[in-house]
């Protein structure tokens, strides 16, 4: 019998109306890197929650080293040596790295904390595994990569042997990703067993020894990565062949719709400017994509364009009119549509109904507000019903569904419907497919391309290189608030883009 560090056997977990995990088996060998692959909603997080004792499964059992174990809460999991780097880091930002690492298992001398001892252990661990972090730095001051290393140190400090990484590369630069891959290999070499949750096939192929695939709550299979291909894994994950490329016909871009010159936007987070002297144009019938690692000024760039933040200097011209100082409403009525980065923060009023959200950009128009400032409810309803029909927005109770209760994909569809139906001159779409499943992603990509084909100007901001390469007509790479390169997606490789995104190379972009 083979020696497994952890075995999750025939796990079934049901929620009212849905079976989140249906007879799933996952076996993690000692010292291996094992990938867990699946789309959003495939049941990966439920399975991990079962492993951490957050949920009790209806059926199935968990074994460690062949022994059956009961995991009732995260503390049990901790005691058994299971640790996890969460997708959203569980770090207290105003604490130091060291405080975050020792939190929960603080060494004390008498009634007081004994940080000296802890610091030595942390320094020793970071040496051993090549995890360079300053233990006395505040978490809010360090880079995302360092924060992730802090999370890894947290597990190592607790002497965990089973390390779970939940989508760890989403926030990293290509260079940081390869560093992380190396770290994971080091850890495995030292005898740690690693479970690597991801939907990025290339990374799985690079680093994992084996891969278990889930789809819609069901176990599809476990394969050795050296015996398979990315295409095969993808078919297992989605259940059909996925068309990774987006069908686009060639169009020659028309007149300039958006003309940005020397735009500078201050940062809310630090003293430096978030966007520095950026100039570019977007024309009719083209999709210009801003690529870059999260946090390099893309958010602020869009805030500046849409009027959410004032410019420090520079000019924005939309369809020949200077809108540098125009209020948000003016920009919107002039034909700027904006699919925001954060649909919960900006895109929707979650406590409002779907219909009220669908008119969020137009409620003040005479069609929806009558004489004396009274809303024309019948018109709002009719309009909402049309959009719901046309854009296939699904919800429990149609127009009167509270937005909060809708699925992420349908919330995003509602926003896309609202912004596209405004018939804009310029569509700004920021990470429009974040957190969506393959079907919704394909749909939204096709909508964006349709807009372009109809002669609209599209500015797409994306962190996903696949999206950048497949959808755009022109790529601008942003690094530390500046545009460091302009590329034709047909003539550039992902690797080359990565170097620009990480700031290793730069060239003067066409201004």
């Amino acid at each position, binding site marked *: 019998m083979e020696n497994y560090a952890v075995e999750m056997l025939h796990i079934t977990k049901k929620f009212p109306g849905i079976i989140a995990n249906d007879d799933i088996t996952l076996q993690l060998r000692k010292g291996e890197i094992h990938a867990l692959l699946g789309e959003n909603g495939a049941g990966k997080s439920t399975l991990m929650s079962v492993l951490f004792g*957050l949920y009790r499964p209806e059926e199935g059992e968990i074994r460690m080293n062949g022994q059956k174990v009961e995991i009732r809460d*995260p*503390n049990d999991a*901790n005691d058994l040596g299971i640790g*996890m780097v*969460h997708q959203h880091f*569980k*770090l*207290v*930002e*105003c*604490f130091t790295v060291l*405080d*975050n690492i*020792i*939190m*929960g*298992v*603080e060494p*004390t001398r008498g*009634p*007081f*904390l004994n940080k000296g001892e802890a610091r030595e252990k942390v320094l020793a661990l970071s040496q051993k595994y090549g995890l360079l972090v300053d233990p006395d730095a505040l978490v809010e001051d360090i880079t995302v990569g360092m924060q992730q290393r802090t999370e890894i140190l*947290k597990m190592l400090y607790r002497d965990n042997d089973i390390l779970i990484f939940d989508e760890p590369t989403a926030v990293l630069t290509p260079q940081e990703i390869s560093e992380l891959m190396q770290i994971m290999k080091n850890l495995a070499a030292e005898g740690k067993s690693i479970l690597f949750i991801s939907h990025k096939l290339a990374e799985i192929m690079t680093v994992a020894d084996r891969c278990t695939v889930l789809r819609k709550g069901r176990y599809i299979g476990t394969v050795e990565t050296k015996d398979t291909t990315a295409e095969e894994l993808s078919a297992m994950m989605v259940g059909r062949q996925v068309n990774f490329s987006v069908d686009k016909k060639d169009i020659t871009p028309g007149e300039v719709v958006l003309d940005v010159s020397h735009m500078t936007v201050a940062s809310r987070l630090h003293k430096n400017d978030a966007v520095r002297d950026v100039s570019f144009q977007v024309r009719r019938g083209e999709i210009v994509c801003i690529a870059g690692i999260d946090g390099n000024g893309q958010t602020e760039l869009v805030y500046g364009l849409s009027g959410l933040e004032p410019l420090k200097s520079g000019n924005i011209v939309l369809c020949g009119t200077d809108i540098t100082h125009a209020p948000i409403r003016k920009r919107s009525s002039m034909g700027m549509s904006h699919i925001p980065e954060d649909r919960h923060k900006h895109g929707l009023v979650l406590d409002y109904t779907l219909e009220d959200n669908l008119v969020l950009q137009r409620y003040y128009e005479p069609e929806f507000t009558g004489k004396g400032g009274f809303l024309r409810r019948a018109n709002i309803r009719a309009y909402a019903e049309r959009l719901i029909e046309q854009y296939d927005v699904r919800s429990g109770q149609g127009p009167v569904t509270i937005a909060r209760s809708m699925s992420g994909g349908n919330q995003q569809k509602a926003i896309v419907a609202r912004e596209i139906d405004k018939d804009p001159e310029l569509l700004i779409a920021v990470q429009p497919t974040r957190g969506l499943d393959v079907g919704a992603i394909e749909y939204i990509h096709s909508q964006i391309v349709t807009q372009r084909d109809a002669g609209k100007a599209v500015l797409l901001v994306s962190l996903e290189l696949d999206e950048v390469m497949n959808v755009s007509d022109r790529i601008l790479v942003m690094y530390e608030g500046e545009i460091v390169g302009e590329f034709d997606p047909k003539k550039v490789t992902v690797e080359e883009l990565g170097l620009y995104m990480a700031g290793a190379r730069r060239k003067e972009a066409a201004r």
Partner: protein
Amino acid sequence: MLLLVQYTLVFASVLTLVALGGCFSEHSGVINIGLEGIMVIGALGGALAMKFMPPGTPAPLILLLVTLAAALAGMLYSLLLAVAAINFKADQTLVGTAMNLLGTAAATVFVKAMNTARDVSNVSATIEYIEQKKALLIVDGTEFNWFMVITVIVLIGAYVVLYKTRFGLRLMACGEHPQAADSVGINVYRMRYAGVLISGALGGLGGIVYITAGVSAWRFEYGVAGFGFLALAVMIFGQWKPLHIALAALLFGLFRALSNVYSGFDVLASLPIPSAVYNMLPYIVSLIVLTFTSQKSRAPKAEGIPYDKGLR
């Protein structure tokens, strides 16, 4: 002048204690608007302890018992907030407001009932403690009392607990990022209970210090005249840090003391300023201070948000 110093120190003690209370509660993630009511109940606990102290009790024992009674009363009362905010995820501002109203109403009803039970003609809500109060003073005939010493001890204690102990680290983690705290096995509910109960104890203690400041009897219908709220302003001004809070409390205490003793200063008394202005002064000052400090104030991130274990 000495009088001004005395009152400044007395009021600064009150504000320090109560603001530190608020600080513990907020660092654990619970907004405590109910400090005003907690002060009233703490004051009631302390006043009752003094009233029923047998004559001839040694002074240190009186001090100890009164302190304990006030802290305990405040702590018990703060359970109302803890249960509602932590277990039932109630709106913390609403519950705090209710506690403020309830504190004064309950104390008034209680004291009146007690007074009436002893003497049918006595329908006042006043408790007197002329003799007992002397035990609290360091120097008889002044307002320098032992509570000032206790305040300094509490202040140092609060600093050490928050920054040098395991408890403090965990408490602050719960107010900043409860999910993170939970993920490393810290019981967020229990830490929040601790934060609220400590704020109850300190708020209660502040209550008794307040009603022994310069007077030897208290009418409970008056409540504590917005002192709990001033303490919240002190806490914000002090940026949720104990030492800053103490400094802020001194400043606010000075302005509050002015309204008590301004008539003793010939210069001030001769100015054509109505007494109401002096009464308003601490509130005006705190409003101005908040106007210029709130922009960059950094409250514990998760304060006011009920923690739900299910939502990670």
